[in-house]
């Protein structure tokens, strides 16, 4: 046994040696090209969850980034190289990944990450290293706060909450709204908070929100919360949250005989929302970033054509379009800066104005947040259909 073990261990060591040998061998040519010219290659780092709980979201974003890289492989006559690192949907890992991009790969700019809390883990690192970073779909206001080097191409939770409050008030003629929020999700409580604030302001009624119920991620049964809210007799129910729980919640609401419209946020826009909720989610309304039915800008058409060519029969998700936008916004800033220098790119990113992205016109405000239109969609005949566009005032 001992002998077998020692043979095995030595075999393992040899194997490891070969593996690392290969590693260094492959790295050396790329290293030489990299150093021979920080001249011919501009490196853009991508840190996304490719494994772990958020892998699906990360993969969708990377799809968009790669598509953009295929369409625009060059800037200033130099090749753009994407350096993708996995952050394992883990905060500790996310900070190491961001640090690696900055220190080891020496990237000019970074895109990422899906998930606000993962983006926040990179915040201090990119700020200290002064590398501009563009988040595609991180909507938590804290991500860009107090950080001149963090930008995003999506709108933030406060705006989305406001949009839905406006919509409920003006289009659905709601006077009394009940809220069901996923208490363990920063996204859900953020939206609820800002919905509440603007809805109270719109109606001028401090009691316009008739009830608030909480649930946790992974809950299956919502009958207690729903029965409670039903008794309060609201005109509309606002239920931002994860798509699985939300579709179950809507299903149970309909079974309990709640007939009022149920509205939510962009997380609902996944096929599973309809496949779980089926006919119960018919008529559900939510705000999102992007629609493939009605191209918003010429860039949208270009993106859609390319996406459909690569994936016949599949419509792109909003985060894919946002990943695409994050890439082209950085490229645009590099072009205007006429340099791959991080600080110059950051300066140009900060003044991005009326830039045509695939998911709408992008103007970055002083926090680095995108000010852009929201799209309202509804589930009709088992499909997400375009309903309206709400202008960013």
């Amino acid at each position, binding site marked *: 046994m001992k002998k077998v073990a020692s043979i095995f261990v030595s075999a393992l060591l040899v194997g490891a040696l070969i593996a690392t040998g290969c590693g260094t061998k492959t790295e050396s040519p790329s290293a030489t090209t990299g150093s021979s010219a920080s001249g011919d290659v501009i490196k853009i780092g991508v840190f996304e969850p490719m*494994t772990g709980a958020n892998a699906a979201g990360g993969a969708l974003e990377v799809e968009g980034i790669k598509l953009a890289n295929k369409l625009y492989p060059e800037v200033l006559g130099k090749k753009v190289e994407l350096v*993708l690192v996995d952050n394992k949907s883990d905060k*500790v890992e996310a900070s190491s990944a961001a640090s*690696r991009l900055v*220190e080891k790969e020496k990237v000019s700019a970074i895109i990422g990450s899906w998930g606000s809390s993962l983006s926040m*883990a990179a915040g201090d690192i990119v700020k200290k290293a002064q590398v501009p970073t563009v988040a595609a779909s991180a909507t938590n206001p*804290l991500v860009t706060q107090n950080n001149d080097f963090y930008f995003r191409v999506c709108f933030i939770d406060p705006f989305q909450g406001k949009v839905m409050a406006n919509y409920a008030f003006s289009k659905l003629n709601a006077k009394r709204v009940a809220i069901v929020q996923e208490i*363990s999700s*920063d996204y859900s409580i953020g939206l609820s908070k800002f919905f509440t604030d603007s809805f109270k302001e719109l109606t001028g009624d401090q009691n316009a929100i008739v009830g608030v119920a909480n649930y946790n991620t992974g809950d299956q049964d919502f009958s207690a919360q729903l029965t409670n809210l039903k008794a309060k007799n609201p005109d509309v129910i606002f239920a931002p949250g994860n798509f699985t729980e939300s579709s179950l919640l809507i299903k149970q609401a309909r079974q309990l005989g709640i007939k009022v419209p149920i509205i939510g946020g962009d997380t609902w826009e996944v096929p599973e929302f309809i496949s779980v909720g089926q006919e119960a989610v018919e008529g559900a309304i939510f705000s999102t970033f992007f629609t493939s039915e009605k191209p918003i800008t010429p860039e949208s058409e270009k993106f859609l054509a390319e996406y459909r060519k690569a994936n016949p029969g599949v419509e792109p998700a909003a985060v894919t379009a946002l990943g695409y936008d994050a890439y082209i916004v950085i490229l645009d800033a590099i072009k205007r800066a006429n340099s791959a220098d991080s600080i110059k790119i950051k300066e140009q990113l900060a003044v991005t104005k009326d830039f045509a992205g695939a998911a709408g016109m992008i103007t970055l405000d002083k926090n680095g947040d995108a000010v852009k239109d929201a799209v309202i969609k509804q589930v009709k005949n088992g499909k997400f259909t375009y309903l309206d566009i709400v202008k960013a005032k």
Partner: protein
Amino acid sequence: MKQKKTLLTLIAILILFVFVFIADQTLDSYKMRILNLCAIYVILGLSMNLINGFTGLFSLGHAGFMAVGAYTTAILTMPDIVKTQNFFMTPMMKPLDTLHVPFFLALLAGGILAGVVGYLIGAPALRLRGDYLAIATLGFAEIIRVVFTNTQSITNGALGLKGIPVSTNIWWTFGLALVTVLIIGSLINSSYGRAFKAIREDEIAAESMGINLFKHKVIAFTIGAFFAGIGGGLLGSLLGTIDPLMFRFFLTFNVLLIIILGGMGSITGTIISAIIITIGGEALRFLDESMTIGSLVIPGISGMRMVVFSALLMIVVIFFNHGIMGTKEFTWDGLFAKFAKKPLAKGGNKQ
């Protein structure tokens, strides 16, 4: 002889500090971050090994204790203005919003609070044994996380905290790791430590020898929770941001992996495996990238390193089925024996 060994230990510590000093001067922040993580995982691994490895209590509550330590340290060190910015949804509770203390005191407070929580959880739960204790502690850790999610005016709930001052540096992490090693090491070699080990081997025999089972279990559990709190505080302050989702069962699992790989009941093993696991995960990143072997181009597959890493772990566990060190420790005597009387030691030893 004893004097000589103490001298050697002091020299080793001196060498460690010289290493830390050189690392601090020469390495970039990415490598420093990995080194910091190594030291933090050493602290966490040791604290868990004290409970699981030395006392034989199968506890899975570590993430909960870390959360207590991390939140306490964060709340006590964050400047007022950052607090107001963070708590834009629900204002922070009154005395806490203007409260702050120096980093070390905050860290200590985090450790003590985690120890208190450990005591409160341990007192009832330690009447359970084996798998039942594991389930109970796992449940408590989840409860702590859910409480933190719901106490918005204290912890900012699911939004998490951002902008925690990054006070953790290599002196803190390595210094505290050294302190942890020394404290847990001397605890293990004291009469308490022998009692812990006796409890691990056979509870009934230990009790009949006059060891107060409950008292010793609670002591081990509380001290373990204290160091877990310190480790959590350091981690939060290294990252600069924390949220309740960070302290899921997965975090406990990471620490458990370290002590199982290193050997349940070996300080040396925990130190070695904490370093291997932390550096290994980063060093294997090249597996995720696309590779060119000769003319063959293999496209990068994300997650490949995790597959390889897991396979390596399985191999280690199969061939060293008590972990790298088992219950053995590094001693100066052992080192001398290796160099001086190699044949004799071999003859005398079963190896």
